[in-house]
């Protein structure tokens, strides 16, 4: 396949490659996937493969990302011609196009009304329900977005994507315990998702920062990061979180030691010596990752540029403290 990037969902493609893809769009769209012959003959001459429609969908999203609405319109036309306008997925994709093309809030509200109609006509239409949540979020109505997401999750409580979106929405409202609850649901569905374990650590850390009453949150955050590192070696975000959490615990150590016994019914907090060791380990590993990734050693690529910079900044901050 000439465009390997097009076979993955575009949320993982970088900004630059999305731009490159959408520049290729006219060339890809020039090759019609379905033949123009009448029905029985068209079976013989179509060049459709399983990947064709994945490519079209991802191309569509890349085009919207880069603002090429004309090519996006062509993609969605091809998709509609193939699967029909009442297909759930096509309805959601058409909705995305309309959202992107909406010039002002009034137009966006009109799209939202369309979604409501579609949901009334077919209450099982999950893709459109999700679009509705996204539109409400775009309209800056987080309470409504949360309400409709909770409704969706009552109907379909095994949808990890929706749970993690709900967790993000709650987090944006600083409702930490709800956000943590939602993320726990994601972990129940995908227990080995290391990114989610680390995310859980981040949420716990943030919730500790907002209300630093309960030190057991911090030790759970520490353990979540450890779990994510156990599942995925050299996970930059995990080490980063581990380091700052250890720092926080060590900072608090003299204060908490007096009342450490009272807190935490789940597990006793790790001993200061262990935290110290973990901190050393995280610092060592972070330095190694930053060094190797910035020299672009083979097997050490694929780290996010921004995350590397943040990790380096964290290490530098540490170094300054030592110099002083």
């Amino acid at each position, binding site marked *: 396949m000439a465009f390997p990037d097009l076979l993955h969902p575009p949320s993982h493609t970088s900004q630059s490659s999305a731009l490159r893809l959408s520049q290729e769009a006219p060339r890809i769209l020039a090759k019609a996937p379905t033949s123009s012959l009448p029905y029985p003959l068209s079976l013989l001459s179509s060049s459709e493969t399983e990947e064709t429609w994945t490519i079209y969908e991802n191309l569509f999203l890349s085009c919207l990302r880069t603002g090429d609405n004309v090519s996006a319109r062509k993609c969605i036309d091809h998709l509609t011609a193939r699967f029909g306008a009442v297909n759930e997925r096509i309805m959601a994709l058409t909705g995305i196009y309309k959202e992107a093309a909406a010039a002002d809030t009034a137009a966006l509200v009109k799209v939202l009304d369309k979604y409501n109609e579609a949901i009334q006509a*077919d*209450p*099982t239409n999950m893709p459109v329900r999700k679009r509705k949540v996204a539109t409400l979020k775009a309209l800056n109505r987080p309470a409504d977005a949360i309400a409709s997401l909770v409704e969706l999750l*009552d*109907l*379909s*409580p*095994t949808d990890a994507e929706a749970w993690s979106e709900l967790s993000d929405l709650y987090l944006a409202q600083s409702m930490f315990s709800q956000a943590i*609850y939602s993320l*726990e649901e994601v*972990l*129940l*569905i995908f*227990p080995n998702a290391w990114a989610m374990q680390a995310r859980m650590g981040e949420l716990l850390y943030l919730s500790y920062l907002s209300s630093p009453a309960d030190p057991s949150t911090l030790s*759970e955050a*520490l*353990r*979540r990061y*450890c*779990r994510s*590192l*156990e599942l995925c070696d050299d996970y930059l975000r995990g080490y980063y979180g581990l380091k700052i959490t250890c720092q926080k615990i060590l900072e608090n150590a003299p204060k908490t030691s007096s009342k450490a016994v009272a807190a935490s*019914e*789940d*597990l006793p907090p*790790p001993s200061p010596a*262990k935290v110290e*060791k*973990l901190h050393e*380990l995280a610092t060592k*590993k972070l330095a190694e990752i930053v060094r190797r990734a910035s020299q672009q050693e083979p097997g050490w690529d694929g780290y996010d540029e921004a995350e590397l910079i943040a990790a380096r900044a964290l290490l530098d901050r540490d170094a300054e403290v030592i110099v002083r």
Partner: protein
Amino acid sequence: MGQPVVQTIQRDPALFYWILLPITVVMILTGILRHYATILLQSTPKKQPLPNVRQHRSLIRGVNLRQNGNQLSPSSFQNRRAQMVSDFKEGKFLADPEGRGKPRPNPMTDPAAMEGMMGMMKGQMTMMIPQTLIMGWINAFFSGFVIMKLPFPLTPQFKSMLQSGVGTRDLDVRWVSSLSWYFLTLFGLQPVYNFILGSNNSANQVTQQMAQMNPNPGAMGPDQDPDKLFLNEAENLEVMEHRWILDGVEDRILAQLA
């Protein structure tokens, strides 16, 4: 005592062109035809009504909690378990709360179940009809022909497999009759279909029959009472033992990396 006498039969080479090849070609073509016929006859699966979706997924959520509960901290797990067990026992997620405790309706009178059975019937028909026709065709035209000789020796146990339709006791096992060739192609063409149609084809009835024996074991059967399933799951959750996976994770990490 010399070498065992090698049986030779003077065969008309036309047997090869007019029996062996036609049977093979016809069998392959029927397979392909059957593949496309099944695709055409497939009815799109009907959408489940919303309450049923909710019932099914809520049950799966219970199963998830049981299987992956170790991911949660003990306090959070206890809360969830208490909540879920009481909900399951009350039947909060049932699609049909009034139908609790009543016996399930007879599947023959249920129109939804009838539809499923029709689909199965259709699948059976696409297998049965061509099979009967070809079998009749071979019996009518080619019965009793010996059409080829295998290039390797075999034990006499294979006689019934390779020489059906030929009633000679002393014939060497290596000779294959036309009816047997039909059976061999019937069961042995799956790789050929895989090559022509791709691996996920429905050309061979044998594999299809095997698939029908256990239609997706994970799904809730239509004749199971959902209320019983929920009560069952609540019981499983109640007796479950919880061990937090984060217990001692920092020691594991230190042992692994330091």
